[in-house]
């Protein structure tokens, strides 16, 4: 089988003045992913290639990078689906480069934290000493389910044109998670999130380019989430019925 031409963008901000493209020949095998090819190059050709990965099954979101010009997960992209001849790996756009394909996700996670990505409840006592479970109906779950699939890989943010120009814009990942929690029937923190996002660099700066939804490897539609979030912020009303949030289901006595 013919070798794969693997081109990697190399750049060490400490030593290099500018990035350079370096080509490696990698023996192809059936079912090879881009991550497999990169690991082969790193293990057998050049140990100094910097890349980040972990689960190898599109669950952890560590190996996000730009592959043949499009943000993708290296572990989830087959070499064959790219034509099998040449693969170009570059770091994600919109992030500072730490080294080669490793980008700095610090501000990405800071923006995620800033939208309070957790259930906010008024019944602190119930949370400290639970007497039951917070209920969700299948209908309520379906409103947020797709948004819970986010693995925080950063691909959506790297593809966003607004993030490229406005460093204070939270980005599609954070905004979608803001909607995911505000639309959760068990949540009561919508007002807190609105206060953080209803400003001149917040949710309204989304131009609905839709590139975030196009590149998401988990099938999440952040562009939809942001539009739904806009409605929530505009009306100030929670996307779910208020009284649903206070339900606590208590398990019946077993009688044993």
């Amino acid at each position, binding site marked *: 089988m013919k070798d794969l031409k693997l081109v990697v963008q190399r750049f060490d901000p400490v030593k290099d003045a500018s990035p350079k493209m370096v080509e490696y020949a990698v023996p192809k095998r059936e079912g090879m992913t881009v991550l497999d090819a990169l690991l082969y190059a790193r293990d057998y050709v050049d140990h100094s290639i910097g890349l980040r990965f972990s689960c190898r099954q599109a669950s952890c979101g560590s190996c996000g990078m730009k592959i043949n010009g499009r943000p993708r997960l290296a572990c989830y992209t087959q070499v064959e689906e790219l034509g099998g001849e040449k693969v170009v790996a570059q770091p994600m756009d919109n992030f500072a480069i730490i080294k080669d394909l490793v980008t700095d996700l610090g501000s990405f996670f800071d923006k995620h934290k800033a939208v309070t990505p957790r259930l906010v409840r008024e019944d602190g006592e119930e949370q400290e000493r639970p007497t039951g479970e917070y209920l969700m109906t299948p209908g309520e779950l379906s409103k947020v389910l797709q948004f819970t699939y986010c693995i925080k890989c950063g691909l959506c943010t790297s593809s966003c044109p607004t993030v490229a120009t406005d460093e204070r814009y939270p980005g599609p990942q954070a905004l979608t998670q803001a909607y995911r929690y505000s639309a959760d029937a068990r949540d009561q923190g919508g007002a807190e999130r609105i206060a953080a996002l*209803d400003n001149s660099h917040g949710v309204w*700066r989304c131009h609905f380019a839709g590139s975030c939804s196009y590149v998401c490897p988990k099938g999440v539609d952040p562009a939809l989430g942001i539009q739904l979030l806009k409605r929530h912020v505009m009306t100030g009303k929670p996307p779910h019925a208020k009284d649903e949030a206070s339900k606590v289901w208590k398990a019946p006595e077993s009688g044993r």
Partner: protein
Amino acid sequence: MRESRLMLLQYITALLAVALVAVHLLTQGIIYPYSTAISFGTILSLYRNGLYAIFLEALLVVVLVHGFNGVRIILHEWRQTAPWSRWVDIGTVVAIVATVAFGSKTVILAVFGGASG
């Protein structure tokens, strides 16, 4: 003012502008032929129609608010420092007030006979 209120204003003025500009263009074609619609006498007679003067004033305000608010949004995306944002907001209000006042002066003078045909 909260950004959501400004965006609501932006959406409302966009819809109103579409409607008012459409009425403006259609009126020109229906009441007067296009060839005479922009003659000085025709325009002055329109201004002296009270209802049409109110309509023109509304069109002026709607288009200027929408336009300058749109520029404000672009300038906010251009740079993100706090002083820049503050001056963009102040500048937008000043620009809207100044241009509405200037445009209104024309309408008011025409309505109350400041200009003659």
